[in-house]
């Protein structure tokens, strides 16, 4: 098993664990944590997909010159995507946490089952 496969497999495993947690745990905070785990998994998958074994990070500095870049570095796009995804994930997580706070303030509960007044 190559590192890439391992990374991707681990990533998917994390996604599944995260989703399982998010879908089974009733506590809102733990759900949010589970989602961050899943997000991490997705990010790992992203990295893994862009990974080329034996190459270096796509940073043009002394170590890697522009001329060599095409041959030496891994695909930079997934890396960029991961960065964006992390930022967005952070934003969403922050928003969810804010929601969790407000929910707790108004209803004094963190159980997702208590917020079912809207239904049907």
């Amino acid at each position, binding site marked *: 098993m190559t590192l890439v496969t391992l990374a991707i497999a681990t990533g998917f495993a994390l*996604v599944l664990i995260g989703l399982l947690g998010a879908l089974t745990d009733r506590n809102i905070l733990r759900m949010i944590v589970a989602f961050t785990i*899943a997000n991490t998994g997705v990010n790992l998958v992203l990295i893994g997909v862009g990974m080329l074994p034996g190459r270096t990070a796509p940073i043009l500095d002394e170590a890697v010159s522009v001329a060599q870049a095409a041959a030496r570095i891994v695909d930079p*796009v997934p890396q960029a995507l991961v960065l964006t995804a992390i930022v967005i994930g952070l934003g*969403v997580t922050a928003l969810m946490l804010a929601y969790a706070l407000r929910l707790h303030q108004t209803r004094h509960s963190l159980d997702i089952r208590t917020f*079912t007044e*809207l*239904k049907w």
Partner: protein
Amino acid sequence: MVSAIFILAIGLGAAFLLGLLRDTWRGLAYALTLAALAAMSWIAGSWLVALAGGLGPVEIRTAGFAPPFAIALRMGLPEAALSLLISLTGLLSAVYMRGTLMRLGRRAMAVLLIAVMALVGIVLTRDAFNLFVFLELTVIATGGLVLLSADPRALGAGFKYLVVAQVISILLLVGVIFAYHATGSLNIDDMAAANLVTLKGGAIAFFLMFVAVVAELKPFPANGWALDIYESAHPAFSAILSAALSAAALIAADKMLSIGGPEWLPVASSLGLVSFLGANILALAQDNDRRLLGYSSIGQVGLVLVVLGQRDILGASTPFIAGGLLLAHAVAKAGFYWLSGLVQGRSLMDWTALRGHPVLIFAFVTFVALLLGLPPFPGFYAKWGLVHALAADGRYLVLGLILLGSLIESGYLMRWFGYIIKRPQVDLPPLPSLSKRAVVLTAVAAGWALGWIWGEISGYPNLLLSIPLLFALGFLFIEWLPAWVKNLVAIAGLGAWFWYTFPGYDPLHLIYAAIILVGGAVILVASFDAKGRRVGFYPPAMLMYAGLSMLILAQDSFAFFAAWEYLTIGSYFLILRGKKSEPHALSYILFSLGGAFAILAGLALGAQGVLPFDVADLAKAPARLAPWIFALLAIGFMTKTAAIGLHIWLPGAHAEAETDVSPMVSGILLKAGLFGLTLLLMIMGKQSLYGIELTYVMLWIGALSALVGNLLAAFQEDAKRLLAYSSIGQMGYALFGLAMMNHLGWLMALMFVINHYIYKSMLFLSVGGVAKRTGTRDMYRMGGLITLMPLSFIAVLIGIIAVSGVPPLSGFGGRWIFYNAIMSSEYRLPMVLIFLSGPIAFLYLFRLIHTIFLGQLKDEHRKLKEAPLWLILPQMLYVAFLLGFAVVPGLALRHVDAYISEFFPAHALIWDDITITSTFGYWSPISIMVVVGCIFAVLFLWLLVLNHRAQKVKQFNIVYSAERPFRPETTHFAWNFFAPYRKALGFMTLPLVTRFWQAQTDLLHSTAQVSRRFYTGNGQTYAVHMLAFAVAVYLIWMGS
């Protein structure tokens, strides 16, 4: 031209700028927000104008590189239109939310700007990952904007939304990365060009992206989270969610489909269909206004998805059709949500607050019409095109399901409208806010403008510009005038239009034109009786007349169908005006729309994609389809004539309508169905389906209608219901005559058209006048009115003699022609029913005249006056006409007779000076009149000589087994008049048809009630739904 990227830049920049402002400078912040949104709208608008002017789509390369090295945006016509829609919705919502935004400050405004910007971004971007980013921005912004709501429940809804959004984002992100891996590009066009779905791993990558994007459409049933937001969010935000987000998500789905290729189109169609049907069914069970609108949104988006999925056959017309549906939906739904912000209560009944605010009611009507795709709105053109394309390509299942879904949708929307107009008004008046009202009215204006635009680009004559329609709409602007002025205008308009179009009619059309226009004017004379302004009467009435008069002028199928819709809608509003007419108006509009859909499907099948399609070309329909076309059209028309099985709407609708509306909808409107049938039979002739001749089936339907209609009429206690049931019977006769497909059968049917107009209008007017005076329609509560209301009595007397066909009045002519007609018909068995139903007519006619005018006068009626002059006047005109028509039927009929000879040369009548001769018999109306008149006069004189000194006695001076009557109520024999008859034949009046249709609607409702339990309100459950939905789509895809 300003680059489209500035739309994004302005949104983003302004949001940043807001962050720099002091929190207390709220006015400035608000102004900045509005300015930014206006600027965004202006840029989108200028692009729209330019692109519509013929400019090609423009690619915008950010960072100066071509994809895949940089993100590309595209501004084409659809993008420009949707950008404008989104930014305008944002702008109007911002205006609408002024109070909320000012209270919450610049952060809220910034989030709003981000939301609009992100939505425009979704529209513009051609980059898959960029799409993800904008979607996530939308999610975050939505999460923020949900909190604008004053409803504390919004908090939970927002969180549920975020949970599901997380799941979606995981799917999307994984999909995007694998798609990138497979194609080496993030650009959507590159992915499409690389044929992503055929690459290794590409299919699953596409699947993930597709599911994620489709999930943003909130497809049924994975949409519980969205509904909670719709229900609890600020209405102006719901407007954005429903109009702008849906539009953005749809264009994203469209982009995905461009990657997926034709293989994925059926999947999209099925998902769309499930959404459209499922959401509409569930909406039936809703009583919260915003949740209902949410379901409706989901349904509409599903419909557009179906259109996208049918792109393979729609081809270049896809944007026109999808755009028509989408824009109509967006404008209507945004309008609805804005309107819901004016209404203070949240149940559907709380909307009764709108009553008494004609402008808001008009707004509501406009939105409903937009949603349902009624003419002249874009949805009408779109559905027309869609149905024709589907029919031409043989996608009957899709076609059928779309029409079914539309019918269900009209069901709950029309029911809601009925509540608003008729249910007890709640004590919560709509908010007085002027700016909010202005926003709603902007949506109304936008709706009409879209109607005009779609009319212009449709390739058909613009529906909005036809003179009759404009005339009808014109009454909206003179609603402030007193009723009698409007009535004069209406009568003059009908007369002028008849005068203007007169030279163009052949005899057949002339009969219908005369009944509709001249006959309509005569009935309108009765409307002079109305006092005050009578708001809301003339626009629908004239809309109905406009539809009718356009119907008989229509040449191509489009004009025909549009006219059909007009008259349906107009008459619906008219019927709804009656006191207790709410449920009946609803069943009327449902049956009518169902019938209209059948007609639409029939016309589309006939056209086979060739548009515009001359109705007369139905004759050239391929033999394989012809019987089906015939059946569909016949069913549609028979819905209007209330043939048995489709009749249950009629009694209530006609009986509960206002006094002068009943004759309109009975005397005139029913003729629209007959006109359609006449055309149909004239063009398509006899058709066989599986060896059964369809005209033969119609013969049976006509005969059964005649029998059951008459029988039920005999058992009614309510005078107007009696007349209504009698109409079913009469229309059965006419249908029977037409279906005989011979010369005299047609002549009889046309004679029925004239006769039925006259006597039914007359009877409805006189009975209406009596009901007005007595305050009841129950016949057993009346009695003995002959001396108090002699003119009404004469009208009814002449009317029932004419209806029953007793010589010497004109009804006999119809019977005589009927007998001659059946002599030359090949079919004999259905005659048995007709023979049976003939005498039954006597039962209800005698009941009508006896229980109202004869028998015992009641205490409280002893001082009644004759019906109002304006009601009597048209009746007397009818009496005169009936007598005249009885003596010289040839005046009208001989021309028709000659005209029919063109189609059925055999068995024409011979019109000598006073005798009319057929192949089998002869008939001399004048001689009959003279002979009967002379005998009657002689005998009357003889009786006068003998009994001229008769003592006039009073009503209790009757022999009463040596006793005397106690009260008129117990002496008037009227209730359950035909008890023995009920014993003998009552089994034929079991309400089987009503039960059948009741069972259908019950089934739908219980389905809705059971399946809505599926939405438990738990965010986790919704996330599970989401995943299950993904799996289901996967299975569908694997299966297809």
